[in-house]
């Protein structure tokens, strides 16, 4: 493929010299500082770069931001043309683009986050067991709900978001079979007004804990919870955050005092995964053609470190289930039953 | 002698055209000064310069002897100059009062004191005899009343010098009489008036002096007392003009248009045409006389398929065309010179050439297999432009750039050229100069003489009397009388139009 690839910078020869081991990632439309998986991935790359004394840029580690779907391919190709050793596509949306380019550029190594690409030796797939982490926060919710009603607000329905919903529901039911889980999708990842409205509906129907996996729409869920808290500081309204520790999102001023409505968060360690795959590749063990899954076991998902609202009892239960899951004692569904 | 207005050696150019050159106009205090010129001669342009809408390239303006730089209408207003524009400057959705007080509103607190405003309007309107309904919406009132609103606007601002740009073109005879009276009242109050008109008779009747412009150039100023209509016309056009339209006797044969029991509602859903019967034969011109708003518009629109007929029948050459699609009716042989040429007659942003085929663009030879043949279109346009003396830089010029008279000539050329069996002409000469009027009347008569039927709608009795063979008087949506043109008079028609029955009228006049 190299003959036709037209790499101007002299391609192969350079590569053979002991050039830095370089890594790059292509974001989806969220951008590199989305407070979510793109950012987390970039943190992983940055950590890798710093450990290996790399500089940001062509000779070290870099990112390419996509502003629209059409940019994926362009960015991936730019990364290829810059001879990065591993190129990450962050987000399931980059699947098609990577598949195509991986075929064209057999000499480059790719990794995709949140999606599986099969039968390509130069593509590693990084997946997370979001359902496991969601199960854990489901356990928290199931134990902590006083009304026996909890809610889930998803963005746009899809495989990925369904994993969160399914795991969560299972976790709730596991510890509290009487509890009901209201699942609703906003149809958007950006409209926080809609998220707020859905949350308002769920809370006023008696739900006291909502787990969101709805990006920007999820911000509306926080807003609604905070509003309710402000109106009635005694009321139990909680939100469970997603992807990163969303503790700060839950801060609310009530009568001059700062309270917090973030019960806990389901943290997805894209950084851990990205860094690990980079290290493997550097050691020449690039998991091409393989699926690398990150669950509780692999430190890929976890419950957030801010745990101030959780009682010891709950924490104990979480620990227990954590072990059980790691030991494979529980089977957690990753799809919603229709 | 002291002049209130002096415009000296004015020159105004537009891209590609010199609209005014070496024009001088001096208006004395207390006179009615006429400004005369063919369509497109540059009258409106000159007045817009005076009113501050355009800046002249050259020349000097003095107001009351003082040099004035009139860079905006505001300054003109301050100098006591008010203008009634050829195309009204009224906000359709506002009331009469709102239009008048705009920019100089009486207030109570922070809101408009509409009561006080209406009172003031009433007062001025009484003082000068300009009857208006202060709270009516402009869109709902007659053209005549709209014009009175325009005049009131200037008076409300205390204008001393009033410019009237073709005020009578859009008025009914009755309204014109009223307007003359109004102008006389204004003069009595010490105001001065500049009047643009194409109607030489009016000039002779009410004006003191006339300034003539020909093709943008000032020709000179004459005292009305020292001149005649013929002389004025010759001055204006630069050649001899024949006035009375020469026409032979009509030779009516078969019925071309037959209308029976036609009923039409207007846009508000009110009956506008009621049980109307009318026949127009080939080889004759039937004029419809009537005061504006008596169903003329709805009648035409029903014939041409633009408005639904509630009941009754319209036949063309014996074939039913009631409520057919406009295009079908056009194709069956109806031509239509609409009353409002800007709104209905032309696509102003199309080249004049393309306007010439607005109805026939899809037919041979202008179009073949759905593709237009611009060569043919513009060939035709050029022919029509020459034949109908449309003054335009070229056939590619946008219709918008043409003066009103030339726009009208273009429309008439287009309609006549399609050779329709029935030609409906609504106010065909409104706003046109004598030369153009003469020309158009000739064309209408030619149509008749070649065996076509012509239906002429006009508010000008003189036109109706001169051109028509038979005259149908319309009143409140009905034809109340049909008379022969050579057996009636302006007075008789006037009475009929006001609703008197023919029998009464004839008795009165004959006894």
């Amino acid at each position: 493929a190299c003959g036709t690839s037209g790499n101007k910078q002299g391609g192969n020869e350079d590569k053979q010299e002991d050039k830095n081991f370089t890594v790059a990632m292509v974001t989806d439309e969220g951008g590199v500082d989305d407070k979510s998986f793109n950012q987390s991935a970039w943190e992983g790359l940055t950590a890798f770069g710093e450990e290996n004394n790399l500089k940001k840029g062509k000779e070290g580690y870099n990112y390419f931001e996509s502003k629209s779907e059409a940019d994926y391919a362009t960015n991936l190709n730019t990364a290829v043309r810059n001879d990065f050793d591993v190129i990450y596509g962050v987000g399931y949306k980059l699947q098609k683009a990577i598949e195509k380019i991986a075929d064209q550029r057999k000499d480059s190594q790719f990794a995709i986050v949140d999606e599986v690409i099969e039968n390509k030796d130069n593509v590693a797939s990084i997946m997370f067991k979001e359902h496991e982490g969601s199960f854990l926060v489901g356990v928290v919710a199931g134990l902590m709900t006083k009304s026996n009603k909890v809610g889930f607000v998803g963005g746009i329905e899809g495989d990925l978001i369904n994993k969160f919903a399914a795991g969560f529901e299972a976790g709730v039911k596991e510890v509290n079979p009487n509890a009901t889980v209201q699942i609703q999708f906003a149809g958007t990842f950006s409209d926080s007004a809609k998220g707020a409205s859905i949350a308002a509906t769920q809370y006023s129907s008696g739900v006291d804990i909502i787990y969101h996996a709805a990006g920007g729409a999820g911000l509306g869920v926080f807003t609604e919870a905070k509003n309710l808290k402000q109106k009635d500081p005694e009321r139990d309204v909680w939100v469970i955050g997603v992807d990163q520790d969303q503790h700060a999102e839950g801060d609310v001023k009530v009568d001059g005092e700062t309270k917090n409505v973030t019960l806990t968060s389901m943290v997805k360690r894209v950084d851990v995964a990205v860094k690990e795959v980079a290290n493997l590749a550097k050691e020449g063990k690039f998991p091409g053609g393989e699926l690398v899954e990150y669950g509780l076991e692999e430190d890929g998902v976890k419950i957030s470190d801010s745990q101030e609202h959780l009682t010891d009892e709950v924490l104990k239960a979480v620990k227990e289930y954590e072990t059980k899951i790691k030991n494979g004692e529980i089977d957690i569904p990753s799809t919603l039953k229709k | 002698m002291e002049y209130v207005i002096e415009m000296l050696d004015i020159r105004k150019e537009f891209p590609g055209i010199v609209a005014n050159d070496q024009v001088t106009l001096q208006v004395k205090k207390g006179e009615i000064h006429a400004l005369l010129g063919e369509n497109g001669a540059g009258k409106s342009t000159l007045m817009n310069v005076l009113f501050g809408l355009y800046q002249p390239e050259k020349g000097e303006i003095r107001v009351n002897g003082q040099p004035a730089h009139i860079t905006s209408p505001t300054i003109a207003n301050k100098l006591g100059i008010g203008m009634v524009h050829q195309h009204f400057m009224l906000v359709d959705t506002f009331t009469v009062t709102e239009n008048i007080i705009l920019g100089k509103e009486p207030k109570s607190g922070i809101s408009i004191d509409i009561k006080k405003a209406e009172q003031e309007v009433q007062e001025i309107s009484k003082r000068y005899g300009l009857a208006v309904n202060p709270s009516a919406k402009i869109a709902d009132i007659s053209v005549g009343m709209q014009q009175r609103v325009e005049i009131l606007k200037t008076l409300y601002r205390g204008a001393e010098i009033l410019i009237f740009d073709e005020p009578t073109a859009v008025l009914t005879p009755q309204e014109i009489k009223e307007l003359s009276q109004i102008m006389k009242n204004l003069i009595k109050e010490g105001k001065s008036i500049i009047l643009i008109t194409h109607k030489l008779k009016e000039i002779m009747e009410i004006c003191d002096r006339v300034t003539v412009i020909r093709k943008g150039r000032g020709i000179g100023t004459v005292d009305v007392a020292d001149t005649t209509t013929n002389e004025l016309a010759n001055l204006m056009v630069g050649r001899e003009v024949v006035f009375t339209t020469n026409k032979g006797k009509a030779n009516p044969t078969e019925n071309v248009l037959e209308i029976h029991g036609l009923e039409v509602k207007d846009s508000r859903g009110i009956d506008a045409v009621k049980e109307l019967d009318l026949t127009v034969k080939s080889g004759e011109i039937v004029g419809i006389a009537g005061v504006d708003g008596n169903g003329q518009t709805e009648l035409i629109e029903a014939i041409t398929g633009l408005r639904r007929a509630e009941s009754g029948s319209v036949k063309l050459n014996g074939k039913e065309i009631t409520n057919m699609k406009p295009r079908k009716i056009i194709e069956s042989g109806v031509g239509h010179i609409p009353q409002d040429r800007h709104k209905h007659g032309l696509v102003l942003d199309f080249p004049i050439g393309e306007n010439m085929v607005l109805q026939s663009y899809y037919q041979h030879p202008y179009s073949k297999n759905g593709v237009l043949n611009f060569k043919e279109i513009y060939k035709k346009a050029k022919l029509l432009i020459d034949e109908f003396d449309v003054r335009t830089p070229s056939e590619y010029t946008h219709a918008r750039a043409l003066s009103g008279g030339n726009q009208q000539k273009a429309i008439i050329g287009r309609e006549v050229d399609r050779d329709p069996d029935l030609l409906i002409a609504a106010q065909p000469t409104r706003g046109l100069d004598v030369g153009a009027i003469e020309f158009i009347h000739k064309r209408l008569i030619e149509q008749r003489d070649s065996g076509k039927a012509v239906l002429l709608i006009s508010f000008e009795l003189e036109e109706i009397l001169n051109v028509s063979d038979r005259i149908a008087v319309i009143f409140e949506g009905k034809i109340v009388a049909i008379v022969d043109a050579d057996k009636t008079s302006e007075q008789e028609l006037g009475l009929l139009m006001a609703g008197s029955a023919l029998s009464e009228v004839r008795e009165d006049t004959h006894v």
Partner: protein
Amino acid sequence: MSKRLSNLLIPIIAVLLGLITGAIIMLISGYNPIAGYAKLWQGALGEPYYVGETLRQMTPYIFAGLAVAFAFRTGLFNIGVEGQMLVGWVASVWVGLAFELPKVIHLPLAIIVAAIAGALWGFIPGLLKARLKVHEVIVTIMMNYIALHVTNYIVRYVLSDQKDSTDLIHESASLSSVFFESITEYSTLHYGIFLALLGAIVMWFILEKTKVGFELRSVGLNQHASQYAGMNVSKNIIASMVISGAFAGLAGAMEGLGTFGSASIQSGFTGVGFDGIAVALLGGNTAIGVVLAAFLFGVLKVGALLMPDANVPKELVEIVIAFIIFFVASSYMIRLLIARFKKGAK
């Protein structure tokens, strides 16, 4: 100066002014404008690969621009290109997936179906405008949202087995081009660019040369006179929206059959439809203008991706684009500038 020359000069000056403004902003905020623009150039036209990407990006912009321009020329404001494009996209992919046919049938079929889908989406606002005088701006905005949710639903539940994206369409319906890939070093450039240029010619031809176009323009400029001249105003309004929608649908086909070869769930609007408004108006609503404006947009959008290489944040590119649009729109100002310049020269 001749009219033709100034017509050519004005957009060029506008673009230059936009770039200069962008440079000033970069300077003020501490970035190197020369490096920034060098990257922009490289990322848009500097290498065959990027030329390919720029042309590919330009393809849907041409169609979206044509769609907006066509409606504008006929007196309508089609804000619904985005939605019409989405339905066209999904429709083309549906045909691409559902059948297996020889390419000569399959590809045209997929393209036509996309156009029909877009046309249908334009038909509704057209019909409502023509029959009930409902303002097309609101209806098309609403239709955008409806399209977004409906196409997402179709992708998930009809065209795929509850997946976030459909499979790749059959090769027989694809616009992708091995030839282009080889000369542009694997860019995603596809044969759609020819269709888009053809589309521009078609629009020009319809509007300027045919009787249908004559009617449409006439109705767009003066409904009343057109009606008096025997044209059917309602029919023309509907026709205009339908044709406009068809162009938009084709923009979707470019994505579905060309760039992506599939359809996926959209978390929001693609933006192409809205950019199409700017493209159309920058291009003065003429076919050739749209092509040029689409090229400009393609250059800026694709070139922008490399600008972060010079440490210029991508947001800055948006700012530069905004200023270029401002300046192109404010051609009157530039005319004044030219006039003053000429006076100064004399």
